[in-house]
């Protein structure tokens, strides 16, 4: 071929290569014909549900306050004091209505326990119940809370994890809470951002796992060193230690972390426990900031073995901030959703959707990250995300909140952040080397994601359309059927922002069923119980969790959307004790109150 023609063709080829990203972007953009201001009826007709933000209208008048830590951190205070807004759902008084507990983090600030009055409104009873005044600079401030009935008296008790002294409150039959921290033998000081209740050895007593973030020797109000930051942006192992506290049954807990083989010092931000291998024992997935994730498989309640690399989840280091499980493909297996950081043009870690490989199971368990393939990869500076069937169509959807620091809209801190993050450990680990933030934003004012599962392996974002339009710095998300209507409402805790409640309205012909479980020989909270529902040729598994997602806990009750005209074959309940209970053709549209058979 003529050399000149070849040259021209090569130029065309070259230009085509350069234009390719633009073409791919154009093709991958979904065009949503419905505008953001579309009436709810239209949205419901299209997507099956619609949200309305009603927090203030129903009495949730809470705004989170951040802590003021040691003055040596002042120049990067917004970055360090960037967590603490958390939310957990509990029916603390067993009246059948889900209540809301939210944490605050300013010194002297009050946590709130919003009692669900059942008439549509909520009332703060935290002070009266004795769980409000828990944030002081000498004992630390709240980072989150999880509820579990550790003494099996039928009432959910409260564990408060903090940057500071953790607290355990025993629920006095819904009439108030008694502080039992010292008697329980909890660690004197932690800097933790996650904890969960689980019965790791299936002895019928709830144990407690706590994931440290900053090292526990640091008092962030009285620093004796400025070397408090991670030693590496992606390989840090100088974070807080972990605690597995075994419930001895007499109100005391024993630290069994080392003997169970858990030695991690990564910067854990979220943990979820679920039986991922079908052994009956809960495994642990740790979502770690500044490093790889860890998966601890439970070997018969006597040892935890870390298998992150072998299973594929512990290979690529990112900024893990969330851990939640859900059977998104209705195949009877749990997928894990882990959030990370994505900032256009700077840092594109992408979130992880760890889907178990088809051929893997048990000890051969392997995961593949299908976040990109399934459309849930990019969520900004993502924090909490929860699975739940938001439109009751029979497939689990995904609600994600995000946004790190929303300050000056015109100036951002990304350049300085990236400058130090790439430097040597001696530089990155010392706060005095970090440039001042000077009121700049860092991935602020971000749009949230409400990813709808189409049931065919794809999720698509409908947040703006269904009414989730806030751009606060979201931290925690909890899902609950707050008004016993058979739909999942969404509560969002925002850092230095208001508590939001998105009330859900779902199309009427989408059916549902729910299970409220109570253990007998198993722990009374029934944490770890699996319900496997078979209907219309589908199978979905859900597990009662003692904490899920960053700084959050969903309602204990398990909610299944069923879609139109469902025919339920059976529900198989596997209790932590190992007992199997089968309900044949359970009635739809009600909450089944089930107690573990004696």
């Amino acid at each position, binding site marked *: *071929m003529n*050399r000149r023609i*070849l*040259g021209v063709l*090569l*130029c065309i*080829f*070259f230009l085509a*290569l*350069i*234009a*390719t*990203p*633009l073409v*791919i*972007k154009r093709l991958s953009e979904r065009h949503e014909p419905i505008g953001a201001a579309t009436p709810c009826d239209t949205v419901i007709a299209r997507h099956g549900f619609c949200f309305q933000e009603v927090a203030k209208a129903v009495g949730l008048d809470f705004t989170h306050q951040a802590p003021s830590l040691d003055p040596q951190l002042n120049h990067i205070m917004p970055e360090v004091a960037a967590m603490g807004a958390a939310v957990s759902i509990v029916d603390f008084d067993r009246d059948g209505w889900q209540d809301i507990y939210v944490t605050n983090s300013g010194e002297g600030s009050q946590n709130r326990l919003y009692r669900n009055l059942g008439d549509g409104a909520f009332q703060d009873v935290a002070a009266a119940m004795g769980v409000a005044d828990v944030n002081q600079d000498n004992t630390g401030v709240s980072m989150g809370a999880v509820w579990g009935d550790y003494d099996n008296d039928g009432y959910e008790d409260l564990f408060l994890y903090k940057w500071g002294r953790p607290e355990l409150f025993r629920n006095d039959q819904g009439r108030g809470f008694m502080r039992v921290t010292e008697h329980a033998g909890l660690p004197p000081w932690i800097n933790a951002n996650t904890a969960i209740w689980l019965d790791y050895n299936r002895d019928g007593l709830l144990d407690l796992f706590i994931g440290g973030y900053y090292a526990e020797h640091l008092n962030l109000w009285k620093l004796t060193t400025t070397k408090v930051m991670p*030693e*590496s*942006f*992606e*390989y840090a192992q100088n974070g807080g230690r972990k605690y597995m506290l075994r419930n001895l049954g007499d109100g005391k807990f024993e630290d069994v972390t080392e003997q169970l083989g858990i030695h991690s010092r990564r910067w854990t931000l979220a943990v979820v426990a679920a039986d991922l291998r079908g052994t009956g024992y809960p495994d642990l997935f740790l979502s770690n900031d500044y490093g*790889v994730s860890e998966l601890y498989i439970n070997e018969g309640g006597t040892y935890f073995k870390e298998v992150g*690399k072998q299973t594929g989840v512990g*290979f*690529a*280091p990112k900024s893990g901030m969330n851990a939640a499980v859900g059977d998104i493909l209705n195949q009877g297996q749990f997928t894990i959703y882990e959030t990370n950081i994505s*900032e*256009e*043009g*700077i*840092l*594109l*870690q*992408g979130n992880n959707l760890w889907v178990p490989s088809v051929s893997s199971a048990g000890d051969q368990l392997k995961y593949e990250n299908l*976040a*990109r393939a399934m459309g849930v*990869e*990019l969520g900004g500076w993502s924090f909490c995300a929860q699975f739940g069937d938001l439109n009751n169509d029979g497939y689990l959807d995904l609600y994600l909140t995000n946004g790190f620091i929303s300050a000056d809209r015109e100036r951002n801190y*990304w*350049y*300085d952040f*990236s*400058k*130090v*993050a*790439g*430097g*040597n*450990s*001696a*530089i*990155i680990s010392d706060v*005095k*080397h*970090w*440039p*001042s933030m000077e009121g700049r934003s860092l991935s602020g004012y971000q749009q949230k994601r409400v990813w709808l599962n189409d049931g065919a392996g794809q999720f698509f974002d409908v947040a703006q359309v269904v009414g989730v339009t806030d751009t606060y710095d979201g931290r925690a998300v909890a899902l609950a059927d707050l008004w016993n209507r058979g739909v999942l409402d969404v509560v969002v805790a925002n850092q230095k922002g208001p508590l939001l409640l998105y009330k859900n309205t779902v199309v009427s012909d989408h059916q549902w069923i729910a299970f409220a479980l109570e253990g007998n020989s198993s722990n009374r909270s029934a944490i770890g119980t699996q319900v496997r529902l078979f209907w219309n040729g589908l199978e979905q598994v859900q597990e009662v969790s003692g904490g899920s997602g960053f700084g959050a806990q969903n309602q204990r009750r398990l909610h299944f959307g069923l879609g139109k005209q469902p025919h339920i074959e059976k529900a198989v309940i596997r209790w932590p004790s190992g007992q199997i209970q089968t309900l044949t053709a359970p009635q739809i549209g009600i909450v089944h109150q089930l107690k573990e058979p004696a």
Partner: protein
Amino acid sequence: MNPQHSDLNTSILSETTSAMSARARWFKFDQRYLAPLFITCILIAGQLSFGFLESLSRTVLAIMTALVVELVVARLYWGQWPHLASAYVSGISVGILIRSPAFWPYALCSAISITSKYVLRTKDRHLWNPSNFGICVMLLVAPGTVASLSIQWGNYLLPMIVIWFLGSIIIWQFKRFHICATYVLSFVLFALVRSWITGHPFLAEVAPITGPMYQLFIFFMITDPKTTVQSKRGQCVVVFLVALVEMLLRLNESVYAPFYALFLVGPAANLVEIWWCSRQSALAPAAKLT
């Protein structure tokens, strides 16, 4: 001149043919393989110790694409099979420096890098360092899919010292150490200036050069002989200018300042040199006549 010899994107590579020293002759190992070997060692050590790649398959994709494109284009354009060391280094650089959750950017960046050598050229020289060009294009046109914030060495001192030590020895062998040294000194000087201007801690300004991205940038990009000027003094001036432009970009808070600085200064310096050489060639016969 055949670009398969001239378009090598590391200093080590293209020096070889013309500057085989006597010492190199008895050193039987073909030195064109030194750069690929060195960068492969970095890759393997980093992957085994830190697992530092986005994924091995993505890096393999980048390398394979670079090799295939080089083979096809060179064969079509020049009618002969090329030596693949240069393309291999480009591919592996892309595979390490590009970060994307998707696969296609790795292939595309490699393809753009290699093709640029054949398209963006004048007087039988290509103007941009191939992987620098490819990465800059990707960062500019696909910011939603591609990033290059790389912290792959774990921010630790030991790997950094090993890389600097080995890299310096190899670069010294090929008489290009002065380029690296000038750049590093310039960077530190300008870090001081930036610190003075911004009020930020000096160590914060120096921090980037202690990271792994700069090791690749310094040893594999700024030393590329075919995209740097010929004279030793000119090379020092050019990398000084690269550091200067980088400082200006950094003052404007550009995250990828070094890539963009080389992207801007490298071709400009080449064009000036090409123009100067042409002028000298034109003047020489005239001078002879007079």
